[in-house]
């Protein structure tokens, strides 16, 4: 939470050791040092090959293992991987399930998640900015966030029935806490010197809110987003398993109830794939939104090792 201020404090003395003149020309820090000389191309190829092996080796190895071990599987619950993959196409791609089930699920998730971002960041900035408001709300928030979000499904079913509203609310109710609480922490930790700088230069109102408060808190907010996303996916699935007539969760649970085991496995795979892809999407967003933060951290780490 206070990584930025605390670390900068420590860095100050170290940074100054670097003399002005030597860095005058080289404004940007050199990227990861690359080996020089003629071996460069060869070693780059070698590194690429190594990297490829490192990234894809184990996943494909595991898949292959699964494939081989399950090939002659007679167990009803563990069909051969070859069968699962073969029916994946039929179940998801050559049917209207992509549009009729997967898309609605994703839309509910997106709606609930985005609402949670708006509510969570908005309230978080408000609560984090005022000490008294924070003190007033803290115990209630501590309690509310400790309630396991899935138990709210029955409650929200009472209020909002079985429709989309209920599912969006379920996702919202689960996603909002990590975002809210992380935003509060981030806003609390806004650097004093930066705050004073803003006061001195007449930066206030919306400009201050965005350029100082939200940007300062953005690393924590993104942490909140990441936690919220994984909760959100869970809740999307659960709300559909509970009460729905379409959606990914509904479809998977239907497969299970009708003992369509192979189809069920394709659903599990798809769900896993979606979880992974959404996490990647968030990672991409994080890379671009927080690239300054990673740079700052890296430079502090470099200084720490000098």
């Amino acid at each position, binding site marked *: 939470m206070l990584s930025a201020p605390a670390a*900068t404090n420590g860095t100050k003395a170290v*940074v*100054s050791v670097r003399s002005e003149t030597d860095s005058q020309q080289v*404004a940007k820090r050199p990227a990861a040092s690359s080996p020089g000389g003629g071996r460069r191309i060869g070693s780059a190829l070698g590194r690429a090959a190594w990297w490829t092996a490192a990234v894809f080796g184990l996943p494909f190895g595991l898949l292959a293992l699964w494939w081989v071990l399950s090939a002659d599987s007679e167990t009803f619950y563990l069909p051969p991987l070859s069968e699962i993959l073969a029916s994946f196409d039929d179940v998801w791609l050559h049917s209207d399930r992509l549009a009729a089930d997967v898309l609605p699920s994703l839309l509910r998730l997106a709606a609930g998640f985005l609402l949670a971002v708006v509510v969570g960041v908005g309230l978080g900035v408000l609560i984090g900015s005022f000490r008294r408001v924070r003190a007033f709300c803290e115990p209630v928030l501590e309690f509310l966030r400790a309630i396991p979000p899935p138990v709210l499904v029955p409650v929200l079913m009472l209020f909002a029935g079985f429709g989309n509203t209920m599912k969006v609310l379920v996702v919202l109710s689960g996603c909002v806490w990590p975002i809210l609480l992380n935003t509060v922490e981030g806003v609390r930790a806004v650097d004093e010197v*930066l705050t*004073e700088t803003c006061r001195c230069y*007449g930066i206030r109102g919306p*400009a201050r809110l965005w*350029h100082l408060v939200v940007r300062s808190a953005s690393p924590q907010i993104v942490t909140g987003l990441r936690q919220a996303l994984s909760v959100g996916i869970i809740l999307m699935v659960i709300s559909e398993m509970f009460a729905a007539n379409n959606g990914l969760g509904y479809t998977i649970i239907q497969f299970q109830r009708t003992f369509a085991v192979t189809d069920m496995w394709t659903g599990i795979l798809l769900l896993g794939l979606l979880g992974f892809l959404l996490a990647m999407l968030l990672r991409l967003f994080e890379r671009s939104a927080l690239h300054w933060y990673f740079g700052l951290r890296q430079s502090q780490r470099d200084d720490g090792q000098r």
Partner: protein
Amino acid sequence: MNSTALPQAGSGPLLDVRALRKVYAGRGRSVEAVRDLTFSVGAGELVCVVGPSGAGKTTLLKCIAGLLPPTSGELVLEGAPVQGPPPGMAVVFQEYGRSLFPWMTVQQNVELPLKQKKSLDKARRRQLVRDALAAVGLADVPDAYPWQLSGGMQQRVALARAVAYEPHILLMDEPFAAVDAQTRADLEDLVRSLWQRLGVTILFVTHDIDEAVYLGQRVLVLSASPTLVLDDVAIDLPAERDQLGTRSSARFGELRAKVFGQIQRAKGARPTDPAPPTDPALPADPEHADSDPADSPADVPPPRQSTDAGSR
């Protein structure tokens, strides 16, 4: 006291500090950081304020900047009492690493305050930013991020931001305390040249006697906390100064010795001070307990340690 010392442009004092007193009210105890400060700064002057670490220098500066309300006394800037950060003022903080926005490029950092001035159109704003960056020698790195730069360069960015703001008065709070000696000398000359070129009034706070004498037209010597003005030394060195010639001149040595003597006296005089009404065992300057006194050169004592120093 000496309200009309060397007004350069003859337009009377730009900043008037009268009987400034600042007491920090703590839990049941209070700390008197500044007891009684009276001085004025004329338009276009470069005044250095020097005093031992923990002499309430930062407190004084924050009061003038409108960041802290004084307990009593008057602060008048350009004829108007200071009640919050005044519009015609820019501040350069010691902690360059924390006063620049790490999520903004150098150019965005310099430009942000200008965006709050409604009177500036975009072209003019860009022009100001370019000029300011060129003036501090950073014209070629507008798109770098502060953390990609060395400490001295970061402080140049902060300086550019202040200059681009076109302030009437520029406050600098030990701005070079945390950069290395070589960089520091460069930055001092930069401040002198900016001052001469722009005609801006500068109040420069430092704990380094040499720096104060080298930079200033006047040096205000502060006592240890609770703070008083001990002396107001006019620096009659030639206007053109350079690190080697000026610093080795006999006059520089005399002035330096004079200020040094005052500071020593300030330290020595502390026990015979009239007993302060508040608890003298408390730290002089609560902010300095937070900031980094490790940079203090050897000519000033480390800040007094006290068991309550860390209590916040």
